[in-house]
């Protein structure tokens, strides 16, 4: 990877991590980026507790951390950084995160094809050999906006209003 590309990644890494509205809300912190690799931290935050008795952070917050770290590794996995969207994220939870501890996510994009990036990620609170969670994700290169619109024209999404449950599509919708 060229020096200029790496410098660009280090420039966008913190913005991507800390300025994304939801990542900012959770308090994610950019740590590092390299070719196909990234590390992001989630400092403990009482607002993210998912178990009031044990004060353990909710799995959903760990999901966001893993998604964000894996996404950055995917972007950095291409020879020239590409914007990506998550296709699938599969997470195994090994144990509860220790209350009060910062969780680190280390992601590795081990393969990037023309359109797809494959990423593994490990979340731990200090010892990578004692993980909180591990994940496997696939990302898709997002098509430039112009091409995307042309592509959408081919799609004819028909709504079947005859089906019996047509009126329960959206519980909040007042008229159908």
């Amino acid at each position, binding site marked *: 990877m060229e020096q200029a590309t790496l410098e660009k990644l280090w420039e966008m890494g913190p913005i991507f991590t800390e300025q994304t509205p*939801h990542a900012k809300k959770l308090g994610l912190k950019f740590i590092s980026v390299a070719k196909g690799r990234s590390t992001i931290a989630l400092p403990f935050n009482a607002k993210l507790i998912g178990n009031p008795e044990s004060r353990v952070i909710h799995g*959903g917050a760990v*999901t966001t951390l893993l998604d*964000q770290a894996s996404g950055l590794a995917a972007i950095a996995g291409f020879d020239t950084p590409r914007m990506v969207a998550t296709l699938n994220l599969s997470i195994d939870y090994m144990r509860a995160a220790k209350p009060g501890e910062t969780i680190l996510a280390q992601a590795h994009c081990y393969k990037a094809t023309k359109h797809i990036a494959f990423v593994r990620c490990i979340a731990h609170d200090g010892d990578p050999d004692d993980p909180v969670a591990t994940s496997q994700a696939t990302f898709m290169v997002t098509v430039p906006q112009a091409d995307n619109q042309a592509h959408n024209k081919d799609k004819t999404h028909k709504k079947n209003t005859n089906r019996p449950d047509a009126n329960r599509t959206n519980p909040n919708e007042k008229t159908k």
Partner: protein
Amino acid sequence: MDPEKIKQALERLPYAKTLGVRPIFMGGETSLVLPFSQENIGNPILPALHGGALGGFLEMTAMMRVLMETDTFKVPKTIGINIDFLRRGKPIDTFARAELFKKGNRVANVRVRAWQDDFEAPIAAMHGHFLMAAKGES
């Protein structure tokens, strides 16, 4: 599902408050809603909801479904989840409904669908295994 229990369980979870998750009860069906919030955005340019916020919302929906099977408020532990992102999460309200596929002694298998303006066009789907609180364990 017992609406009152879900309401109480969500109120006890700081993460549910952080996301803004609320329950909806209609015609004997329980869904959760993730009201649109600028703070749940993951891509401001598109714009699109954050995959992590959506994933967390789906996981919470599954956990609430499993919680209904136990006689405690002790939240189930997630063993593993698999999330498929099918469409961009538009900056509008998102709904999710869970289905319990298998309930064992300790482990439950749950599937969840998330949709926005069309139930037949889900924006994400999740399936996962959860460890239930044992009887008497609270």
